[in-house]
């Protein structure tokens, strides 16, 4: 045993040049993987932290009444030690300023708030310390700026809340845990917790929410904690405790949708990184093994047993893999901060990079186990290796001399498939995504190998008349057999993986793009009565603006789907009553609308748009257009019949089209649209948007509209979506950076593969040189050979990646897919150039060397 270890190591050391070259390439590939994975982890942490600031806590428990002592004890018992807590009460109230009385939302916060994030006041950003010092030490209030004008209060002036006077201490621009959905109906006023209790507004019968906000200690996950807590509450107080739980991911639906995209996307990035690393490694090891073939034959000739040669190779693979993984882990420690510095101008504030130890461990796994398994057919083939190889004049190719039958090879690849499948499922945290990804990759490899075989069939023919370099290059490709197929697969898959992430990124980025602020409406107006629509439009016009996108909203109840009553359908088992209600309402109560045309933010995905107004004399049902995700939730599609109860009147329609809606367009969009000519006379309220109201005119505009149309409510859209847009912007940035890094890491791997290919050409180049081939000939040949392989392999890989990206988008990202041909071009060009560059580099080195080594030993 000791002899073998010694032999294995000595062999590696004696082939120093090769080992170093090999290690350098492998390390480079693995560094790319670790850096990518680490950056992914850092991004995820960063954005999660940001989104926690939206709820201002990991977990919130709330009730519409005070907590009982029993509940407090139970809560304390069921949260992990080290959990921080703060109390909060939210309620609506009419408060009085010098000029006017106004409905506001009072947010009474206590010591410790905010657990995450900061508040932005007019005078600067503040945290828990300032809350303690300023809000909790007297009757002081932080109010949203609009209120200052609406109430007519001076800075430091007085407002009356309940039967207490508060001084306006500062203006509140932004606060964690507050979505500004209510902004416009009720602006927010922050006061101290104890101060709120003294206003006399919190009494029996008061409508308010008591909150407990929790910040969990490091390492505790919010969702399982919430689940355990819910179970404990349920066990103690029965199935319907009057306490409600929220985790930060539930805090904002739009946000959680964006975050779940990000999660899946980053999972894919991790997969891509893993496969790039695995592929690069495996490819290199395969070449390594072919180079060692002769040495092994010698050993066999000297009497080594077949298995011993296999173990020797496995051991060498393990040693090289481990050294490369170690080196790359160390290098990643250096590379990551460098990368961060490089990106520092683009990085969001407070971005902290974390080194992913998981990815380092994976690098070891991929470096050693993955490669060994990838080489398994070859390793097993070594068992058939005969020393007669040594007696043959021309070194035979690996496939010829050592190898298994096609079927045995296919079987021997199964463990590799198993390993990568397991890794894929683990990295993507989804059985489905992992399997889908691996399946797509396997099919692509098959397609690429067919492409790689093409020159084998065509490469030989029709060569006369071509230039010598081209003929040489084509011959090499055509006759390269397994080697050129392998490099086509490797480069093609590389291009595929490189192109995949940017392709998916494009669709997602478009989906969550922060709309151009000039395209964002300033106000949402709702509750407009039908007879107010015209006067309101006129009035808004008289103020110099325009009311747009006015839409009728007709409340209806969905009663039947295809004549199957919704009442009879057994309720789905939901976790909480809240969810039940929500589910119920979502399925039953619908705001219907109608309009003659599609909005810019909509896109038909199936069926055809309404041909025109409904013809009541015809024999067909009115047409319906459903939002595609809503239709999926209901389980209906084009052709299905839906029946509604429109405030006492049954109305039926047939689904004729499905629409995809970009909800972030912030225009009035509806799940269900009726063909015009059906609902016009039904009782309705109307929505409208107003654009381009300058920031400093907004309060005035709001006041004026309110005075003339007291029942019409206005929502300040900018305030509402600001935070969501900010995070969406960061997510967008994050997926862009990851796409960029994936391209970079992919190119690194492609380079190491190409340079290895070039290295394998060294002997041949030497020979040609001796035969008198000129520098120009050789360069032309290498350029053509590597350029052709690079170009066609990457072209095919990129094309395949479009297919896979489309497939993944169908399942993961709700069919969001936008092709980015630009990045595809960059991928193809980049891989081709890198292949060329690697070929050029190797030729240059070889050309600089004396081919004398081909002559027999000195």
């Amino acid at each position, binding site marked *: 045993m000791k002899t073998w270890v010694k032999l294995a190591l000595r062999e590696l050391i004696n082939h120093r040049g090769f080992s170093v070259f090999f290690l350098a390439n492998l390390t480079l590939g693995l560094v790319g993987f670790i850096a990518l994975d680490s950056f992914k982890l850092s991004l995820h942490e960063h954005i999660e932290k940001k989104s926690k600031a939206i709820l201002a806590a990991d977990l919130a428990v709330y009730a519409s009444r005070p907590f009982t002592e029993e509940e407090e004890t139970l809560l304390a018992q069921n949260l992990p030690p080290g959990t921080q807590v703060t109390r909060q009460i939210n309620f609506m109230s009419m408060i009085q300023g010098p000029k006017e009385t106004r409905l506001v939302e009072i947010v009474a916060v206590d010591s410790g708030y905010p657990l995450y994030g900061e508040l932005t006041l007019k005078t600067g950003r503040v945290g828990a310390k300032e809350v303690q010092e300023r809000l909790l030490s007297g009757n002081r209030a932080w109010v949203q700026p609009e209120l200052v004008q609406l109430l007519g209060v001076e800075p430091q002036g007085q407002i009356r809340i309940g039967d207490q006077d508060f001084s306006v201490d500062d203006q509140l621009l932004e606060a964690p845990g507050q979505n500004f959905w209510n902004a416009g109906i009720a602006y927010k006023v922050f006061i101290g917790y104890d101060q709120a209790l003294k206003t006399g507004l919190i009494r029996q019968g008061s409508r308010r929410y008591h909150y407990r906000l929790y910040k969990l200690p490091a390492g505790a996950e919010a969702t399982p904690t919430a689940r355990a807590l819910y179970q404990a509450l349920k066990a103690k107080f029965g199935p319907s405790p009057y306490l409600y739980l929220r985790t930060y991911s539930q805090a904002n639906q739009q946000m959680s949708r964006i975050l779940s995209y990000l999660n899946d996307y980053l999972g894919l990035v991790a997969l891509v990184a893993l496969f790039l690393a695995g592929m690069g490694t495996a490819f290199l090891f395969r070449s390594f093994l072919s180079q060692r073939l002769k040495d092994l034959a010698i050993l066999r000739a000297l009497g080594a047993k077949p298995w011993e040669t296999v173990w020797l190779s496995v051991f060498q693979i393990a040693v090289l893999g481990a050294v490369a993984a170690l080196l790359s882990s160390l290098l990643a420690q250096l590379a990551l901060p460098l990368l961060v510095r490089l990106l520092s101008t683009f990085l969001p504030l407070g971005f902290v990079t974390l080194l992913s130890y998981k990815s380092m461990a994976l690098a070891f796994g991929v470096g050693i186990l993955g490669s060994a398994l990838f080489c398994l057919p070859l390793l097993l083939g070594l068992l058939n290796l005969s020393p007669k190889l040594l007696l043959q004049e021309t070194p035979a190719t690996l496939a010829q001399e050592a190898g298994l039958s096609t079927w045995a090879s296919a079987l021997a690849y199964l463990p590799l498939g198993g390993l990568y499948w397991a890794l894929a499922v683990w990295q993507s945290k989804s059985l489905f995504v992992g399997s889908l990804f691996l399946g797509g990759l396997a099919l692509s490899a098959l397609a690429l190998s067919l492409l790689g075989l093409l020159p084998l069939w065509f490469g030989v023919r029709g060569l006369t008349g071509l230039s010598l370099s081209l003929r040489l290059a084509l011959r090499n490709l055509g006759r390269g057999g397994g080697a050129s197929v392998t490099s086509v697969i490797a480069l093609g898959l590389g291009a595929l993986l490189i192109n995949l992430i940017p392709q998916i990124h494009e669709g997602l980025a478009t989906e969550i793009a922060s709309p151009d602020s000039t395209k964002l409406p300033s106000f949402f107006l709702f509750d407009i009565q039908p007879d107010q629509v015209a006067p309101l439009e006129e009035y808004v016009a008289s103020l110099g603006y325009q009311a747009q996108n006015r839409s009728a909203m007709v409340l209806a109840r969905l009663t039947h789907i295809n004549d199957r009553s919704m009442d009879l359908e057994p309720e789905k088992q939901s976790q909480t009553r809240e969810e039940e209600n929500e589910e119920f309402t979502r399925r039953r109560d619908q705001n219907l609308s109608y309009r003659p045309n599609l909005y810019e933010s909509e896109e038909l995905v199936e069926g055809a748009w309404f041909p025109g107004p409904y013809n009541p004399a015809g024999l067909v049902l009115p047409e319906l257009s459903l939002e595609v995700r809503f239709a999926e939730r209901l389980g209906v599609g084009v052709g299905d019949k839906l029946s509604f109860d429109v405030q006492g009147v049954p109305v039926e329609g047939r689904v004729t089209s499905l629409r995809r809606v970009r909800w972030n367009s912030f225009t009035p969009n509806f799940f269900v649209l009726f063909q015009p000519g059906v609902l016009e006379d039904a009782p309705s309220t109307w929505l409208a948007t107003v654009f381009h109201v300058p920031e400093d005119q907004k309060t005035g505009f709001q006041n004026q509209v309110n005075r003339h149309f007291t029942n019409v409510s206005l929502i300040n859209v900018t305030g509402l979506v600001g935070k969501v847009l900010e995070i969406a912007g960061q997510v967008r940035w994050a997926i862009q950076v990851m796409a960029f890094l994936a391209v970079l890491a992919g190119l690194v791997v492609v380079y190491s593969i190409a340079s290895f290919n070039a290295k394998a050409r060294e002997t041949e180049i030497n020979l040609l040189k001796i*035969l008198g081939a000129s520098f120009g000939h050789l360069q032309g040949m290498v350029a053509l050979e590597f350029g052709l392989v690079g170009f066609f392999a990457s072209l095919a890989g990129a094309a395949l990646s479009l297919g896979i990206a489309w497939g993944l988008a169908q399942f993961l990202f709700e069919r969001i897919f936008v092709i980015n041909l630009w990045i595809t071009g960059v991928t193809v060009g980049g891989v081709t150039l890198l292949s060329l560059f690697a070929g050029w580099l190797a030729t240059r080195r070889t050309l600089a060397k004396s081919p004398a080594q081909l002559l027999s030993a*000195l």
Partner: protein
Amino acid sequence: MSLELIGIEKNYRGAKNGPAVQVLSNLNLSLDQGKTLAILGQSGSGKSTLLSLIAGLDRPDRGQVILDGQDLGGLGEKALSSYRASKLGIVFQQFHLLPHLSALENVSLPLELMGKPQAVEAAREQLAQVGLTHRLQHFPSQLSGGECQRVAIARALAVRPKLLLADEPTGNLDEKTGQSLSDLFFSLVEQQQMTLLLVTHNQELAKRCERSLFLFEGALHENLG
């Protein structure tokens, strides 16, 4: 074509920072057009170094390699390439055929490199001369050792080289095959009136040359048998 080596000296850097190893020292040689010369020597005596200097694959540290009055030292890399392609043929001990090319393609390759028209026809003819008409489309892996070496000889001769260098051409072959190959080799050399420089440690083979020299301690000595 005549070959003249004057005062050749070649050193190789030994192990790290170790002393340089002198391989050739003050080596002189003169070979006239149409003559055949064998250079004998033990392994490591510098035979291959000598060959690579003559082939223009390496440059001497001192001295001149003069071919037909042209000093190789004065030629650039490009000129050396074309010198090798047009005037030189080399036969290796390991054959060094390109594995992806058929026998015919291997032989036509140097002609193509020179841009000669009718390269394939010339190659076909050359292969016929070495008796491989029936093996034109075979790849090296499908040929026996003797056949491979015959392809290699055909390749070396295809360009009608002025100087033929042979490095242990039968070294990799069994005795019988070696025998018949050397018969073929020398008959072709004779027939084409080629200048031949043969490097070997095989006395039998050396005897078939008009003259043989012994490389020892970096210089050439008359072969005393």
